[in-house]
């Protein structure tokens, strides 16, 4: 197992390098640079060129890349242009709401997805199964921004149960984290919206996995031994059906941080997704590059975690 992990870690190195190269090239390919918008009467082109030279933008491409990369691995992510703060501070300030949203929706998705999946598989061919299956399909077919807008319109504006946007009520004086109830109240709708999409996918997965397992011979043996159907399903079949779910958990790790761009935009939550989107719009290159690399590294880590967890949980797999 350790050799497998070591080997996978080694294999990730070229991928991580490739990620940094691609991110750098993408950022360089964007039209404009931080200085092209500094237009005021006293600023001439020569001044702009001099500023560019001072900022290191005149150096050959590979030199710029290596400079950026060496800073990156030392933890220096640079200075955000649009926020005028170090990139690390900007990210640290905004990561909490996104993680809360991501973990909340993951928990909802897991809980209800597994629950509905099991019910649906056990009661196959009944009305309950049909309703859940159609519901799951609807969940994965509905665009998240549309569901979010509908939720705001009906649950927030019409019914008034939840606030419609932002993280805190303006005017409430308690600083973070003492205003956690208010924050939680604001996060209910976005979490529900994001969770609904996850529920659909998870439910279909669990349902098909459980159906596969329930048709296996050892389940027939358990039943013919006279075991209670509940015991058969929950103690024997479900464990094996949930093995792939472990993989999905690992693969959902990057989504916890980077997957909520649309939900955050709809609900105006000051999180990572919204920040990276605004960074792209304002051409804030250090921020764009840092967040993109962060998301990609998390994806690679999530994949590795998923594979290792799968190998650990499933005793049939030997990765020597």
């Amino acid at each position, binding site marked *: 197992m350790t050799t497998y992990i070591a080997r996978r870690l080694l294999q990730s190195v*070229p*991928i991580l390098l*490739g*990620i940094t190269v*691609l991110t750098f090239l*993408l*950022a360089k*390919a*964007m*039209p404009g640079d931080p200085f092209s918008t500094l237009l005021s009467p006293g600023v001439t082109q020569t001044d702009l060129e001099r500023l560019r030279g001072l900022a290191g933008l005149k150096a050959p491409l590979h030199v710029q890349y290596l400079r950026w990369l060496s800073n990156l691995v030392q933890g220096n992510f640079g200075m955000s242009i649009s926020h005028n703060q170090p990139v690390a501070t900007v990210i640290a300030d905004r990561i909490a709401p996104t993680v809360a949203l991501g973990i909340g929706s993951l928990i909802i998705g897991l809980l209800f997805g597994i629950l509905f999946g099991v019910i649906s598989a056990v009661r196959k061919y009944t009305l309950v199964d049909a309703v859940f299956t159609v519901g799951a*399909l*609807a969940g*994965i*077919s*509905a*665009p*998240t*921004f*549309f569901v979010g*807008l*509908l939720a*705001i*319109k009906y649950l927030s*504006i019409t019914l008034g149960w939840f606030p419609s946007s932002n993280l805190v009520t303006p005017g409430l004086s308690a600083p973070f984290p003492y205003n956690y109830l208010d924050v939680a109240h604001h996060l209910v709708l976005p979490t529900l919206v994001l969770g609904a999409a996850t529920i659909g996918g998870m439910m279909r997965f669990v349902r098909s996995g459980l159906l596969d397992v329930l048709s296996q011979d050892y389940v027939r043996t358990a039943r013919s031994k006279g075991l209670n159907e509940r015991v058969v399903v929950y103690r024997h079949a479900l464990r094996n059906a949930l093995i792939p779910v472990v993989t999905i958990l690992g693969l959902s790790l*990057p*989504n916890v941080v*980077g*997957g909520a*761009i*649309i939900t955050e*935009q*709809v609900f*105006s939550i000051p999180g990572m997704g919204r920040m*990276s*989107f605004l960074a*792209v*719009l304002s*051409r804030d290159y250090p921020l*764009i590059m840092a*967040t*993109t690399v962060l*998301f*990609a590294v998390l*994806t*690679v880590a999530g*994949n590795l975690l998923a594979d290792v967890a799968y190998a650990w949980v499933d005793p049939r797999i030997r990765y020597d």
Partner: protein
Amino acid sequence: MALPEADVQEFGTLQGHRVEVETWGRIFWRRFRRNRAALAGCAILLFLIVISVGAPWIAPHDRDFADLTKVERPPSSEHPLGTDQIGRDNLTRLFWAGRITLMVSVVAVAISISLGTILGALAGYAGGWLDTVIMRIADIILAFPALVLLVVLASIIPASVPSHYGTMAVIGFVSWPVVARLVRGEFLSLREREFVEAGRAMGAATRRMMFRHMLPNAVAPLVVAATLGVANAILTESALSFLGLGVRPPLPSWGNMLTDAVTWRVLALKPWLWIPPGILIFVSVMAINLVGDGLRDALDPRLKT
């Protein structure tokens, strides 16, 4: 064994006995026909395609004509879905938006399938360093969360390129690694089959081997992937357009008709502007998913019926 006449092609005679064969096409069609949900999806899809293709002719008004005296009117007999922020007829924009959204999605999937199939087939058949290089590049692209990559790529497209072409290219580029992995997997297992060994022994050239012999056997999962890919592309395109980075105004797209709905004015007071496009996105994606699921079940070689 007596097979129902309609599903059987007469193959000929062999020593005086009639030989009856049920072709793959018939088997597939029979299984697909029995899936009512998939058929419903087909019907919905057909309807959407008809109104999209026919948009220039069946739309009641001109698409871009902005009548500033009729800004944001509620639905009326003349404008069944009301007018938008600058006075254009909403129903007309809805039809045209469907046309553009579906076109962008289909072309994006076509791009990703073409690119992915060629690269995946090469990787799977050739093996060695070519396989490693192609799969590493695919892994790198797949390491980025899709939306993040799309947002960054969409901002790179120069302003001179029409936004719908740019969106097609971007979505197609982000989706090819998944197809490539699929095709590579299929080719890796097909490579070991006897007919491939026989073909190579007979001296078939690599290109002929791949396209004439191996690819037709890998088509089934590709068709399913293409169908589900169109559904995914519709969702992606509408998300990008909603954010303002996909199809841009004045071109209508179901996604960008929802961009203004984040404002309280449109959200609460003018639901006729944004609810119809949202519903249509949902309905079209659901229909395509139903058809895709039906295709997958009908083409699954493991099922016995």
